[in-house]
């Protein structure tokens, strides 16, 4: 069982950082709402608040790790320009997609959207973590701020969903491959 170096880093970007970040949204949205909704069923203790801060802090790290690894590690491999006249474009995902009208939309819509919208997520979630860290459950008394924080969280979730979904499809139709083969295990 082998995996190429580029495959491994693409998996780290998409699954290790991106998917984990997206999975964390359900918990974050539920906890942010529960802890700050007026008349909520429970008043969070300082320990619960610290735990949520650690959770949001981890989300911030994952969000920035996702966009930076995507933009500066995976994207250059994706958009590399093939030598003139090369017939086999399998190592050049962007060119491979653009070579057919049946697949060019994956780049012109999918990648063009994904590469920009994804950056809304780390900016938004950093703000959310800061505001929650600053005010904590006292946000229940600040209705407008609470609504804004939740709105930015939802937009970050949507942006991550768009980027993640198109990332998965792009990697299906034109995977980023190449580099040293890493031997994981020997098959039967």
């Amino acid at each position, binding site marked *: 069982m082998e995996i190429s170096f580029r495959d491994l880093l693409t998996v780290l970007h998409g699954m290790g950082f991106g998917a984990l970040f997206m999975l964390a949204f359900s918990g974050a949205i539920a906890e942010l709402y529960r802890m700050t909704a007026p008349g909520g069923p429970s008043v*969070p203790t300082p320990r619960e608040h610290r735990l949520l801060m650690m959770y949001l802090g981890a989300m911030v790290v994952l969000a920035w790790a996702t966009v930076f690894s995507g933009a500066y590690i995976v994207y250059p491999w994706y958009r590399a320009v093939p030598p003139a006249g090369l017939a086999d474009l399998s190592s050049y995902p962007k060119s491979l997609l653009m070579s057919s009208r049946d697949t060019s939309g994956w780049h012109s819509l999918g990648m063009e959207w994904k590469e920009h919208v994804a950056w*809304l997520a780390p*900016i938004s979630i950093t703000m959310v973590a800061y505001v929650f860290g600053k005010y*904590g459950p006292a946000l229940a008394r600040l209705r407008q701020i609470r609504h804004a924080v939740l709105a930015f969280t939802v937009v970050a979730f949507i942006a991550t969903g768009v980027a993640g979904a198109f990332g998965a499809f792009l990697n299906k139709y034109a995977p980023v491959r190449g580099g040293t083969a890493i031997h994981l295990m020997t098959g039967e």
Partner: protein
Amino acid sequence: MNASQTPSTSQRAADVGQDRETIAPEKTAGAQLAEQSGNAETITNGPAAAAILAAGIGCFAIGLFALAGDASPAVASFFTFYKPTGALSGVTTSAIVVWLLSWFALSRQWGTKSVALGWVILVSSVLLALSLMLTFPPFMDLLQGK
């Protein structure tokens, strides 16, 4: 941008009043946490307003710079800070700088006081919505008449 100059004095007073609420003598865990973060009797909304508006500005900058880079080869070339990544490197780096600078400036302005939140939230929401639209390629193409 000075929030104290926004719409009307009465409106501002109403907005601020809503967000400068006195914490009851029997303090909740939230109130205690609020005190730990430097708040005694009232909750100052300035730091949150600065962070929210700066986030809106940063997100909008992503969309605006992306549109500019898409519309003009010269701008795309300017934004190519790191050649393997292309214009995306400059678009995002510049937007992050705009976001952090605006956050810093707004925090200095509003860090220790309460501001009228209504317009801050409205502007932030509009900027966030615009950023979503501006990063959507068909909308970009529409704006450029493609």
